[in-house]
């Protein structure tokens, strides 16, 4: 029993200091750090989104995603074959799609709030994963939550309200690991106030030079047997990415 004391003291001290540290930061700063724990400010990544219904794979898409904070997101589908080459451009809450296979040489403007290609993710979830730009956030408490592979983890709970009606969800609730501000889980709410979707950030591994979650598991609370899983295969930070990539002219090239 005496041997347990140092461990208990360390846990208490760590929890206390991490909470103190968290209290030094504003809610926006905490969420900003949480965003950076998932994605850097400018990157290229390759990922797969698999949607399962009742445990069976309904669809699978491979894609390349380019993102630059404050500039835009560009997604290009690489598989399945019938979708290869379809591109999306999202910036300032606007979304365009270009399909080089179609007879249309035009980029088509879409609503960013809609589902991304029939997955549980919305266009905005895939294209612009920035909570601080879309939501007004505040810390609402602390919780100890069970994280697969890590056991019980002390988390800061932050809630965010959509800054405008164009945002995909009216409210978000985030669970952020207090020790390093790694985002663990998020819950998204519809305008009615009811929970709509949840996303879990798991399988932490080295991506783009630091530890990041590599699997995002999005569950629909409307259709409980459907889940979409985004697996990040590789991610490269690219601070020198040109703004010109995120133009309609470049989208249709």
């Amino acid at each position, binding site marked *: 029993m005496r041997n347990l004391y140092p461990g208990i003291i360390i846990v208490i001290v760590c929890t206390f200091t991490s909470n103190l540290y968290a209290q030094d930061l504003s809610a926006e700063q905490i969420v900003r750090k949480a965003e950076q724990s998932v994605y850097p400010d400018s990157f290229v990544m*390759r990922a797969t989104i698999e949607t399962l219904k009742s445990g069976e794979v*309904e*669809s699978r898409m*491979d894609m*390349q995603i380019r993102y630059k904070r404050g*500039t*835009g997101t560009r997604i*290009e589908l*690489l*598989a*399945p*074959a*019938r979708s*290869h*080459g379809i591109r999306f451009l999202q*910036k*300032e*809450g*606007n979304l365009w799609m*270009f399909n*080089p*296979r*179609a*007879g*249309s*040489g*035009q*980029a*088509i*403007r*879409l*609503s960013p*709030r*809609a*589902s*991304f*290609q*029939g997955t*549980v993710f919305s266009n905005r979830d895939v294209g612009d994963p920035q909570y601080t730009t879309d939501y007004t956030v505040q810390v609402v408490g602390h919780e100890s939550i069970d994280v697969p592979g890590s056991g019980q983890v002390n988390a800061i709970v932050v809630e965010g309200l959509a800054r405008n*009606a*164009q945002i995909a969800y009216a409210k978000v609730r985030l669970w952020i690991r207090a020790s390093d501000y790694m985002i663990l889980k998020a819950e998204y709410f519809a305008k009615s106030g009811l929970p709509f979707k949840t996303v879990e950030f798991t399988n932490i591994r080295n991506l783009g030079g630091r530890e990041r979650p590599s699997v995002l598991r999005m569950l*629909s609370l*409307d*259709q409980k047997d*459907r889940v979409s899983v985004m697996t990040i*295969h590789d991610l490269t930070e690219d601070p020198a990415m*040109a*703004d*010109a*990539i*995120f*133009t*309609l*002219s*470049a*989208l*249709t*090239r």
Partner: protein
Amino acid sequence: MTNQKAALNPIWLTMLVAAACLGAPQRGFAQDNSLFGSVETSVTDSIAGGNAQTSSVAGLAPYGQILSGGVKAHLIERSTFADGELYIDDTLAWLGGSDGGMLSNTLAQGYIAVSPLPELTVVVGKRRISWGAGYAFFPGDLINPPASPDNRSTGFSGILATIAPSASFTLTAAVRFDTAFPELATLSGFTPTVAGIAPSSLPFLAAYLQSVPDNPWLSLRYVLYADMLFGNLDLYAASTYQYNSVLRPAAGFSIDLGGVIANGELAVEFSNSSLYPAASSAAFARPALGTPFPIFTVGLQRTVTSDAGSYAITAEYLYDGTGYTAAQEATVSGDLLQAFSALGGSASVAKLRAEYASADASSSAWFSSGSVLPAFGRHYAAVSLSASAGNAFEATAAGLVNLQDGSFAVQPELRLRWQSGVDLFARAVAAWGPNDNSEFGLLPTPVTVTTGAVVHF
């Protein structure tokens, strides 16, 4: 479908060879050299409708017989290199029918893009400017080849430069060469089609009225196109100019209104030598050079994608102010008849004059020896509906209505995503209207149904 016989231009042939020399295309996540596309095989049948004159003129087979069948390969090759990119979008098709087969090649786009600076891209080759936010109508677009709702993928041959000082502002300057050197355009004979139905033409008249000046350099066409994004309001402004032929400034917008995309575009034609869409064989009108002729379009589009499927509704209206007013027709027809007569058509002039005299000013149909000059309207509507269920089934329907005379063309299509990468489809095309003669040809057209399979790779 607008396949046409086209010789493989040496420029495009060189680019295709260059693409092949860049190495075997890779799949999966590789983006340095990417080849994808589809192979489609189909048969087209005439199942009902149509008048005897239509069948006679078009040389159609009796109902129930296969009109044509064929196979086409659509290839898109994209290769990136240091600060540049080679892009080729090509369709090779073989179409068989009762009168034999025809092999055709259509190069929709084929160009080399180079970015000497991050903000600057220079493109040489055949390229399309993605114009505005419309679905069916692009009043200011006289740089891309004539548009139609079912095929707008073809680019123009020339050179263009795009400057993007920020992601929210781009300025494009382009020079189109194939207006001066038609041999550059493998689709130089492209005519506007609606749901696969091409209007009739009077080639000799078009040749007379669209004659190229002695100095081809005077026939280069220029465009400046600027695109700006302010919040969720996308604005664009453009101007197209060709010596003694085109002067058409335009401005447009699109805005996201809570999930409904509204768009509009206003163009003003000062030269009036090009109707909408451009390069129609009927683009002979120039009754009032220097007089501004407005052309505008407004539209709404709603696309919803949910867990269960998606649907999209698009509706657009077009007012086309170019061409003739009733008063102008009376003035110009005299010149037209003189031109016709000078070309050796005197035997038919009396008939032409008689038909013109008895025709309604807004929907007149002018007959000559077996050819029909289509009656273009001033008010149009385009509607497109599509719905998909899960990942398996898709239904679309596109229609274009000439509100002037009530004629309309429709193209419904059903598509089944049968296997991974394999689609089965059935598509019908038909046009009807209260008058026999319209811009869709002689009405009603037979209902044709095309069935086929597409393998994507």
